């Protein structure tokens, strides 16, 4: 279908539209199209330079596409902040000036209000502890003495048992020997003289 046939199709249906001149009612600055070619060539040249300059640097993907939106968002945020500089909450007058004083006053009063109980302050405790000490000491001494008596008694019993087990004749011989030993105490010098007086060297060597 050629262009004329295509146009005839709608021109019949829209005669008002078909009757209007098919021109765009916009104008351009003087000499615009004469200069446009040079300006496009300059843009191409500049773009080529930028491509070369950017070879050493990279930016994140879609950076420049998103940059405009990010800047707009930042501006909008700043505008909102300038319009609403508080979060809507209020405090009583001079609140922050008094705050420090209030905190300090509460922290210094705390020790006075708290009750301290001294361990050795009460007389009852003192007397009770002294009494306990005396009782314990006495108990230790008493039981210690008792254990000594018991040990002594048990020792005596042990001795008696041993003596009971020994024969009487052995005991008598021991007693006699001890008596003799106490009456016949001879010095060494006297012993030597006795041996020399009564025994010859031959007798001594035979006995050795």
């Amino acid at each position, binding site marked *: 279908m050629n262009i004329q046939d295509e146009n005839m199709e709608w021109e019949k249906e829209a005669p008002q*539209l078909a009757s209007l001149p098919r021109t765009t009612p916009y*104008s351009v600055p003087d000499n615009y199209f004469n200069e446009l070619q040079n300006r496009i060539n300059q843009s191409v040249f500049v773009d080529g330079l930028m491509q070369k300059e950017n070879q050493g640097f990279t930016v994140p993907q879609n950076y420049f596409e998103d940059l405009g939106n990010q800047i707009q968002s930042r501006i909008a945020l700043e505008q909102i902040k300038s319009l609403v500089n508080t979060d809507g909450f209020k405090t009583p007058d001079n609140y922050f000036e008094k705050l420090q004083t209030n905190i300090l006053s509460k922290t210094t009063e705390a020790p006075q209000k708290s009750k301290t109980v001294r361990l050795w302050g009460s007389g009852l405790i003192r007397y009770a502890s002294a009494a306990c000490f005396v009782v314990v000491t006495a108990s230790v001494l008493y039981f210690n003495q008792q254990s000594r008596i018991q040990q002594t008694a048990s020792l005596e019993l042990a001795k008696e048992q041993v003596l009971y087990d020994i024969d009487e004749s052995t005991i008598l011989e021991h007693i006699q020997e001890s008596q003799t030993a106490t009456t016949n105490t001879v010095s060494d010098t006297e012993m030597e003289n006795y041996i020399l007086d009564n025994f010859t060297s031959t007798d001594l060597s035979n006995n050795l």
Partner: protein
Amino acid sequence: MKQVEDAEILQKFGVQKTQNEAFNLLLNKYQQKIYWHIRRLVIDHDDTDDLVQETFVKVWKNLANFRSDSQLYTWIYRIATNESITFLNKKKLKNNVSLDDVSGELAESLTAASYFDGDKIQKKLQEAILTLPEKQRIIFNMKYFDDMKYDEISEVLGTTVGALKASFHIAVKKIESILINED
């Protein structure tokens, strides 16, 4: 000035010595068409100026890779259309407005534009066009003002010819009713 064929432009661009010459020939041939195509979408001259330059910078960077499975000028139109749509989408995000509201904003810039020199009926037509959804507006502009064939518009937008016909038909009926009702 005699219009150079697209094939010649592409052939010269393929040779490094004649690359700049080829690009200037391309600018001579298409800069105004592309300018008006973008201007009808974004309305404001300064915005259009920026987008035209961005479009042709992209054309320069990618022309060496252009495959002749589409026509050169539909390929340039596609770049220009995409740049314009991206710009309008950014405008919506920036102003936190919906798709319909940005058309209202464009209508306001239409009346405030210092480079609007149409009469009352032309202003009415432009306002009516701005009431169309974005894609429908692009289709209408290319068919009505640029007199492009549906096949060519299909190459630019990647939409089927049938869908384009239906969309254009709806747009024409809507604008016609606005023009008649406001008379």
